[in-house]
């Protein structure tokens, strides 16, 4: 079995191998530690000159990356926990995202910020969040979410080697141990075109879908389980659109699906209010009007607790998705 983490690690190694301009930096990223989640394990031994451990200075190292990118390098900065991204907020919003456009397109900032996000591991309120919602819709910044679908190595390579703009690359922690490149026997998977494709998943042999799930990251894995349950236990057939590019918003695959099913359920691990799903729903409603039936699932409007029983109650679970799907289709 190959894990998502192994594919990410392989992808980063390939980036370093392919281009002398690629440099990885972050806190505790060198061997023998290899990063808090081990995504960079082995890379500093293989490329000692280009894998750099840094002070605990999130603003400093993101700014350092912006500066390097302005001078022709392709830096990849690891933020140990995505929760710490806010410390680098000014660097992302007022520098990385602005420089190209503000300079009248005279410069480029090919920078990738990798940020492990998400809960379900009991890390508590400041180490479990899905903060990407705060960075969505920022002009000049692309936000991409890791997925177990497709090849994670290719996804990270695209951001590092082929994107000339800053990319916030969101990695849900629970995806690291997930199987990568798994042949899904129950599902037919179609990848949309484009550098950061959306994926459409349908239960093999199922009748026409009456509901579309929209999700990304680890939540998409849970949504896939919900789609299976709905099919086998409730005879409710749904398809699932998994996004990789969250911002700027790209909607072709979803619109195609929703225009057939007429029902949309968005699922995210960030808090629901004013979140990713709100934008997705608004986009679909603008096109489809009042005929569209919608529901949104997300985390409760509280910080994320540490205790397992509490955390489970706070974050959307498979059974919540099944229930919400049945409810929206009963409307």
């Amino acid at each position, binding site marked *: 079995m190959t894990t998502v983490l192994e594919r990410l690690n392989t992808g980063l190694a390939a980036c370093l191998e392919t281009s002398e301009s690629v440099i990885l930096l972050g806190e505790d990223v060198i061997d023998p530690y290899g990063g808090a989640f081990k995504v960079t394990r082995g890379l500093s031994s293989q490329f000692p000159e280009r894998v750099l451990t840094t002070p605990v200075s999130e603003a*400093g190292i*993101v700014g*350092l990356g912006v500066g390097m990118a302005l001078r022709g390098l392709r830096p990849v900065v690891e933020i140990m926990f995505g929760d710490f991204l806010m410390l680098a907020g000014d660097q992302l919003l007022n520098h990385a995202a*602005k420089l190209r456009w503000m300079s*009248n397109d005279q410069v480029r900032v090919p920078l990738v910020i990798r940020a492990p996000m998400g809960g379900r591991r009991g890390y508590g309120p400041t180490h479990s969040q899905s903060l990407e919602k705060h960075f969505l819709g920022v002009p000049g910044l692309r936000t991409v979410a890791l997925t177990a679908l497709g090849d994670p190595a290719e996804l990270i390579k695209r951001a590092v080697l082929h994107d*000339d*703009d800053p990319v916030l690359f969101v990695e849900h922690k629970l995806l690291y141990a997930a199987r990568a490149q798994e042949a899904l026997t129950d599902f037919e998977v179609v990848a949309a075109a484009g550098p950061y494709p959306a994926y459409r998943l349908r239960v093999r042999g199922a009748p026409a879908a009456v509901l579309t799930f929209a999700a990304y990251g680890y939540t998409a894995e849970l949504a896939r389980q919900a789609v299976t349950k709905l099919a086998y236990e409730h005879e409710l057939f749904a398809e699932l659109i998994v996004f990789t590019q969250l911002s700027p918003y790209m909607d072709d695959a979803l619109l195609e699906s929703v225009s057939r099913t007429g029902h949309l359920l968005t699922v995210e691990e960030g808090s629901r209010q004013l979140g990713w799903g709100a934008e997705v729903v608004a986009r679909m409603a603008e096109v489809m009007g009042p005929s569209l039936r919608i529901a949104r699932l997300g985390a409760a409007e509280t910080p994320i607790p540490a205790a397992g029983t509490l955390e489970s109650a706070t974050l959307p679970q498979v059974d919540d998705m099944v229930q919400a799907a049945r409810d929206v289709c009963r409307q």
Partner: protein
Amino acid sequence: MEQPSNSDLYRQMLRIRRFEETVLEQFPRGDFYGTTHTYIGQEADAVGVLHWLKEGDVVVSNHRCHGHFLEYGGSMHGLAAELMGRSSGICGGRGGSQHLQWRDFYANGILAGTLPLAAGMAMAEQRARTGRIVFAFMGDGTLGEGVVYESLNMASLWKLPVLFVLENNLYAQSTPISLNLAGTITGRFQAFDIPVREAATTDVLEILELAGQAVGDVRHGTGPAALVLQTYRFAPHSKGDDTRDPDEIERYREADPLRVHGARLAQTERESIEADVEREVAQAFETARSDSPADPAALTAALGDPE
């Protein structure tokens, strides 16, 4: 590098002075967008320090960037046009007064946010062994920002070729340094083992010499250096927002860098330079005014398409 002539130094300082005075004089006409932060009184810093600039060196500047930009070699007309929101502006009118980018010159109005960029650019040059260095301008008010210290730490840790130029004009907007700064300025650099030189002078020749030594250290490759320049601005923080004691401003005017250095020139020479600069400034503003306003049709998307 050749010692500049006294007349050249005077001309360069006067260009900045007259550009900035013209901006303030003409602001009430409504020709400019937003606001501005003028460099009047601090000209000897930019001129003395950037004399040592070599092709390919990087300059990182802040909200008070016009003087640095002009001394870097930026176009006076392009700067006036940028302030007026013309398509001929340095950044086509997108950036305005405090967001200038041209060649290897980068200015951003976010205090201290530019300093880790300076470190990153220096690291890129260091790794490529180009011998280029980064001049990073900052003010006393910037010292309140935490990312300053992250940047000093990284610059020293990795021996990056950066010269930190701290212009202490004694005020952060309206707040005197006595109300917002503990400890010493030089001590902040010393804490990171960054060699620091200090000049309590407005004499461009003294600044020139001291800056030459600091730049020499950085070019030598031993790591960053710092230059603390005690200065004073004669004009408001931006415009019409001055709460300082007028007598205090008058006292500092006695050490006006143009007066100090101008005394070294014969009157006829000085007048000839003044006439030249007057023509250049008038021409720059006049041309900019007749340029076409920035065209919304020229706006591009904020992101490109990845391959």
